[in-house]
C-alpha cells in the first residue's frame, strides 16, 4: 500500500494508506483511551471514547480513531480541548450508568470526574459488545447477541435461557472489561451465570485436573475434524 503523509499532534509522519488512526497512534506510543476496541476483533466504534479531531482544508470534524482509515493527508489531534470535552462527557454518562465498574471509575478519576450530574443506575455492563463479537468472530458459535433496542439493549442468550450453541469456553468473560461476566469452575462444572451456562469439565488424562468443558471439546473435534485423542491432555501437560 502506498504511503501518505499526515500530521498527528503536531508531528508530521508517514503511514501506510488505509491504516487506522488508532493503529498509527499505538505504533507511536500515543495514548488514546478505548473501551470497545480489541486488537483481535473488527473495530466496533460503539463507545466513542477514542474520538479524535481531524482537519483538512480549514474544516474539522470528530471521528473515532479505531476505525477511521487514513487515506489522504489530514491533521489529527488526539488530545485537543474539544476531544477532551467529548471524552469526559462519555465517561460521565457511563459513570452514571455503571458507577461501580472499576474500569469506568478509573477513567473517571483520570479525567477528574467526581460525581456524575445524572441519576445513578447500577449496571455492570457497558454494552461494549466485546463478548458478542468474540463469540461471533473468534469462537464462531454466536451463542449470545444484543437483545432489544436503545436504552433497553442488553446482551443475552436467545430467550435468556441456556444456549444450545454455547460451548462454555469463557471467551466472553475473558474479553469483558468490566467483570460483568464471571466464570466459576467448581467441582468439575463450569458456570457462566450471566449467560445461563453450566457445563461439566473434562479431566486431563495426565495430571487429572479439570481443564475444558466437554461441549467445547466436542465442538473443537467437529470443527477441526481431529480425533478426540488430541484433546485429552491439558495445555500444561501437552508435550
Amino acid at each position, binding site marked *: 500500500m502506498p504511503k501518505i503523509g499526515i500530521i498527528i499532534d503536531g508531528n508530521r509522519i508517514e503511514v501506510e494508506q488505509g491504516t487506522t488512526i488508532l493503529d498509527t497512534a499505538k505504533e507511536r506510543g500515543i495514548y488514546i483511551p478505548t473501551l470497545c476496541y480489541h486488537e483481535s476483533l473488527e473495530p466496533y466504534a460503539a463507545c466513542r471514547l477514542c474520538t479524535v479531531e481531524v482537519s483538512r482544508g480549514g474544516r474539522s470534524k470528530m471521528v473515532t480513531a479505531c476505525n477511521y482509515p487514513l487515506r489522504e493527508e489530514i491533521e489529527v489531534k488526539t488530545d485537543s480541548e474539544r476531544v477532551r470535552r467529548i471524552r469526559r462527557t462519555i465517561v460521565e454518562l457511563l459513570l452514571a450508568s455503571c458507577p461501580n465498574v472499576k474500569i469506568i471509575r478509573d477513567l473517571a478519576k483520570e479525567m477528574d470526574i467526581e460525581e456524575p450530574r445524572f441519576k445513578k443506575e447500577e449496571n455492570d455492563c457497558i454494552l461494549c459488545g466485546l463478548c458478542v463479537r468474540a463469540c461471533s468472530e473468534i469462537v464462531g458459535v454466536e451463542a449470545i447477541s444484543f437483545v432489544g433496542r*436503545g436504552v433497553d439493549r442488553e446482551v443475552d442468550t436467545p430467550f435468556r435461557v441456556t444456549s444450545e450453541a454455547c460451548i462454555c469456553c469463557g471467551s466472553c468473560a475473558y474479553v469483558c472489561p468490566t467483570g460483568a461476566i464471571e466464570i466459576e469452575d467448581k467441582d468439575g462444572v463450569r458456570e457462566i451465570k450471566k449467560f445461563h451456562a453450566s457445563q461439566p469439565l473434562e479431566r486431563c488424562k495426565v495430571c487429572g485436573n479439570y481443564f475444558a468443558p466437554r461441549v467445547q471439546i466436542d465442538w473443537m473435534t467437529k470443527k477441526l475434524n481431529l480425533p478426540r485423542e488430541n484433546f485429552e491432555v491439558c495445555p500444561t501437560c501437552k508435550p
Partner: protein
Amino acid sequence: MSPRKIRNKDELEELKASILQKREQKRTVIAISVGTCGLARGAGEVMAAFREEIEKHDLSDEVYLRETGCHGFCEKEPLIVIYPNGIFYHSLRPKDVPEIVSETVVKGNIIDRLLYKSLTGEKIICEEDVPFYKKQKRLILGNNRKVDPTDIEDYIAIGGYSALAKALSMSREKIIEEVKKSVLRGRGGGGFPTGIKWETCRNAAGEPKYVLCNADEGDPGAYMDRALLEGNPHSVIEGMIIGAYAIGSAQGFVYVRNEYPLALKNVWIAIEKAKEYGFLGEDILCSGFDFDIEINMGGGAFVCGESTALMASVEGKVGEPRAKYIHTTESGLWGKPSNLNNVETWANVLLIINKGAEWYNKIGTEGSKGTKIFSLVGKVKNTGLVEVPMGITLREIIYEIGGGIIKDKKFKAAQTGGPSGGCIPESLLDLPVDFDELTKIGSMMGSGGMIVMDEGTCMVDVARYFFNFLREESCGKCVPCREGIKRMLEILTDITEGRGKKGDMELLEELSEVLRDASLCALGTTAPNPVLTTIKYFREEYEAHIKDKKCPAGVCKELIQYFIDWEKCTGCDRCVGYCPEGAITGEKKKGDTYIINQNKCIKCGVCLDMCKLDAVIVR
C-alpha cells in the same frame, strides 16, 4: 389480452396511442382519491356507491371510475375530480353519490354544496382554481390524480416509461452528466447532490453494484413518500431503472416501512406489471440491460431510514448503522458499491431526463433546484401534501396555500425536518424554503414534514416529545446517543413536570455538543436540533417552566390546572359523567356551583373535550 413485452421506443409510443384511443370512448372520467388517508375518511364507501350508481344508470361504457392515490388535499377527502372539465367535489358521503351521477355526470349540472368554498366565500368549480392547488407546482404529485396505481396503462397513457426509453438511447455518462447539471439534491433529508452520488458509485470498484430506494419514511408528520408510492409507484420504479442503467447495476431494492401496507402492495403490483411489459427483467427494451427490483419490508425501526442501517436490515441483520468514513457508494450493501436515494429523488429523475437539466434548473433557488413536496400538517386550515418550487417562503406555504392557522389563532412555530430538524419562529416566516437557508437557522429541510404549531403548543413539550421519540428509536449502539438522549429526556421531563432547575438549559446545550460531535450516525448527531432551536427561539418558555414553574401554553400537566368558567357553565352536568376520577361536582342547572377538585383531577382533559360550551379553562 396478455401484454406483449415492449421492445423499443416506437412500440411504447404505439401502445400509448392505442391506449389513449381506447379511452376516448369514455367521455367522463371520475378520479376518486382512495389512498390510505382517503380510506380512513370513508372514501371506500363513496367509491362503492359510485360503482353501484354507474351500474344502475348503465353508464359503464361511458364513465370510467379511476381509483387513484392521494391528490394532496387530505383535509377535504373523500374527494373527486370529474373530467373532462375538472370539476372538484369534496368532503363526500355515500349519500351524495346518486345526485352526483344523475346531475353532474348525466346532465352536466353543478352541485353547489359540494363545491370548494374559498376563505372569501367564493365557490370554485375547477380543481385547478382551488387556491390550495393554485400556488403549488405539482410536477410530480400532480400525476397522482391521473393514474390508477395498479394500472400500468394509465401510467403509459401519461407518458410513463418514455424517460426510460430516452435514457436507454443515451450513454450512461451523459445521463449522469445531465443529473449532475440539474443539481438535483437528495430529497430524503441529506440534500446530497444526486449526480455526484451516482458518479461516485459508477466509478467505484466492485461488482455487483446495487441501487436502493429508501422508502422508510420515518419522520413523524411526513408522508410524501407514502403518497408517491401508493399513488404512482411506476414513477419511482422508472427513476430507479434509469439510475441503475447509468450506474451499471442489475439489482435494485425498495425498502418500504411496514407501517405502509398499501404502499407495499402497490409497489409489488407495479413491479409485476413492469416485468410483464418488459420494463424490468432481462434485456429491457432490447437494450441489453438487465435489471430487477426486490421489495424489502421494514420492521418498525426509525433508525432504518439511515442508509447504513437500512442496508444492514436488507442484509438480514438488525438495523445498526456503521461508520461512513468509507461511503456506501464505495462499500455498501454486502460490501459492494451501492447507490441509495429517497423515493421523491427517484421520481425527480424522470423530469430531468424528459425535459433536460436546463429546464429543471430554472425552478428553485441557486442552491436548491426543482420542487419539494411537503406535508403541511398540524394547526393549519388546509392540511395535506403540497408541492412547491424551492425558494417559496414559509409564509406563502402556511398562509396562502395552507390558509392560515385553524380558528385564526396565533402562529407560533413551524417544525421542519422531523426529529432531526428544528422549530422556526414567526420572525423567520419569510425565510425561503431551501436546503441551505433552513440549515443556516438551525433546522433542516429533512424529508419534508412541516408541522404548524399555534399558541396552544408548548415548545418545551415539543422538545421533550422529540427526545421521547428518539429514545424509543435509538438503536442503542453508541454511548452518546443511547445514554445522552436518555439523560436529556430526563432533564426535559423534569422541566415539564416542574422540577427544572438552574443550569438545566446549559447542561442540555453541553450534552447537545457531545451528541452532535460524537454520535455514530445522523440520528444522534441531529438529535439536539429540536432542543437547540427551541432554546434559541423560545428561551422565555423554558425560563417560565424552570423559574416560575409555569407552562404559558397551558400544556404541561403538572404545571396547569383545569377550572370551570362559571360565566359560561350552565350546569348541564355533562362533564361530571365523563370525569374518570369523579373530580367534578355541582348542582344541576346551577352553573356557578360546578367546581373541579384539584386533588382528584388527573388533568386528562376529557372535560375540556366534552364540554360544548367552552366552559372548561386551563391555566
